[in-house]
């Protein structure tokens, strides 16, 4: 944002909602905060209506704290659990339809490039595994083929969670879920590899177990998308509601999958992106 947009009319200051006052007085815009600063500033996400122990909610919170320039970031989401959280973040964000997020983001990014040619306007796509790997896969991949300067983040809870726990392409093979009553018959879609082969300059898979690692992946994805090309980050976000474990076990589940390699963490960086990041990260605050 080019000027202080977030302010209060003095006469109304005493009747403004508390979270808005906090955002104006102690928000993250223009401050360069990161995950390590959580707890010391008003976060972009307000209360959320997601389930207790929701891994996705935790990931959204961490993503919002990882943005290099939240004051110039627009989020494009899709239908699913995350679409319940995004109306409550203090960034302009779009929900259009189920699966069309990367097509909407392509148009948006190009429009913002036309209107603000000398400024980085980060367009961040954040959607679930169903939206990204199933119903929207063609538009996700075509945005990569075209080299759209977008960062795409998948919140991978390995199921259609908001509709009641149905199998998605990202569910593990053999997993019993709704619409897969005898277990899923094919492997989890290897989207990080597909992303790498489809033109993404930076690809990472992470979990919220290591917040600094997640932050690094999100920041790298956004920065590389500014100058080099499309990027993809896949975040494992365990779902206690549909996978029937206790809310307090969410991080343990993610940790277990990291450990036994059933959710392998990886990072692919093209040489061009590597060179770009090396120049940027020379003395970066968060890296």
């Amino acid at each position: 944002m080019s000027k202080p947009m977030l302010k209060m009319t003095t006469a109304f200051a005493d009747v403004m909602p508390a979270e808005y006052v906090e955002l104006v007085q102690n928000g993250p815009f223009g401050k360069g905060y990161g995950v390590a600063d959580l707890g010391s500033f008003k976060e972009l996400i307000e209360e959320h209506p997601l389930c207790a122990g929701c891994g996705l909610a935790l990931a959204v919170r961490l993503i919002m704290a990882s943005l290099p320039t939240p004051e110039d970031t627009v989020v494009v989401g899709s239908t699913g659990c995350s679409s319940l959280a995004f109306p409550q973040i203090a960034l302009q964000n779009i929900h259009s339809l189920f699966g069309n997020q990367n097509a909407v983001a392509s148009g948006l990014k190009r429009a913002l490039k036309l209107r603000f040619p000398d400024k980085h306007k980060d367009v961040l796509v954040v959607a679930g595994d169903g939206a990204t790997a199933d119903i929207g896969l063609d538009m996700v991949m075509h945005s990569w083929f075209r080299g759209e300067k977008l960062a795409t983040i998948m919140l991978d809870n390995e199921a259609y969670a908001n509709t009641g726990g149905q199998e998605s392409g990202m569910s593990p093979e053999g997993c019993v879920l709704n619409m897969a009553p005898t277990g899923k018959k094919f492997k989890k879609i290897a989207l990080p590899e597909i992303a790498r082969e489809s033109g993404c300059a930076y690809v990472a898979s992470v979990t919220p177990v290591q917040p600094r690692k997640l932050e690094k992946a999100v920041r790298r994805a956004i920065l590389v998308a500014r100058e080099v090309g499309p990027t993809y980050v896949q975040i494992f976000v365990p779902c206690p509601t549909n996978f029937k474990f206790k809310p307090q076990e969410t991080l343990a589940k993610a940790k277990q999958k990291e450990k036994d390699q059933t959710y392998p963490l990886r990072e692919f960086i093209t040489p061009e992106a590597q060179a770009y990041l090396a120049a940027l990260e020379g003395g970066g605050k968060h890296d």
Partner: protein
Amino acid sequence: MPEQKVVAPEFMFTEAAREEQFITGSEAVREAVRRANVDMAVSYPITPQSESMHLVGDIWAEGYIKDYYRGENEFAVMSAVAGAAMGGVRVFTATGGPGTMRALEMFPTWVGARLPIVCAFFTRGINSPLTIQPDTIEMAHLLDTGMIMLHAEDAQDLYDMILKAFIIAEQTEVHIPVGVFADGFFVTHTRDKVRVAPADIKLPPYKPYSAPVPVMDMENVPFRQMRDPFVMKSNYVSYAAHASWQQEVLAAAERARPFIRQYLGGLIEVENEQADVLVLAGGTAVCQSREAIAMAREEGIEAGLIKIKSLRPFPGEELRALTAKAKAVIVPEFNRVGWLSRELRNVVQNPDRVVAGPRVFGGMTMPPDLILSEIRRYARE
């Protein structure tokens, strides 16, 4: 980028000298878009639309449009132009027939998001069986998306309506998409005399902050949209919020009426409206109706013509008044379902007077004799 002077819409539409060109409907699209100060266009091929968006691509290559690409399918294209419009630029695209159906989920989404997108629809039949032939059945599926729908009779209408559609769509109190419809092949692939404004003038640029909703650029408030979102909640406030939004969208289309009257001279055009027998038509059925009415006149039978230019908003009051004394209103159509006659029946008194036909479909042309025989039949009664 070619030098073009920005002129007021009124100058472009009425005062500017016009040059007559002998061009196809697809070329008329190119000439309209060339003068429309479009920022971005996204294309996808489908017969009979493809040529129009080839030509739009050509003028992008010449520098008349700032960004252009071929999308991956019509749903994606309609999504991309939505994203671009939310980002605050003027966009154009076109499709037709199965492409319209493929993209259908997006059209009410454009309207609900208050996006002033202009999309040309070059109508053709819908499968199955496979067809690429002219037919206006897709329009039946779009009547209740909430978008403004203009129906061009010929290439001249197409040129004028596309240019004017941007100005109508972008009024703050309207700010919803406009579909400009023309009958595929009959208009797109035939050559006609079209009077166009000079190529060195263009419409004023779109003003993003005239939108009645926030532009998604993080340069205008609000950033925080809601603390307790009503979406997907089961309570009265949630229902009321959605219901009032839908009503506001309908009201936006209603508020387009004065602008359609101002720029298009009305939602309808009439000739010889005193006649006992009237013919109501849209698109190229108007041409066939003119022909039939001229043939009837040679036989000493008088019939009047109502050309419908705006289907949404629908000229219900105008049609009710015009048809008050008519013995019969014949509605020739290029589709199986007869959606225009259904629309008319809903607004006129004594709807039995509405003759739902003749209708041709599957790609057939409409012999004026078919309309003439209906005129004869009802003139004799």
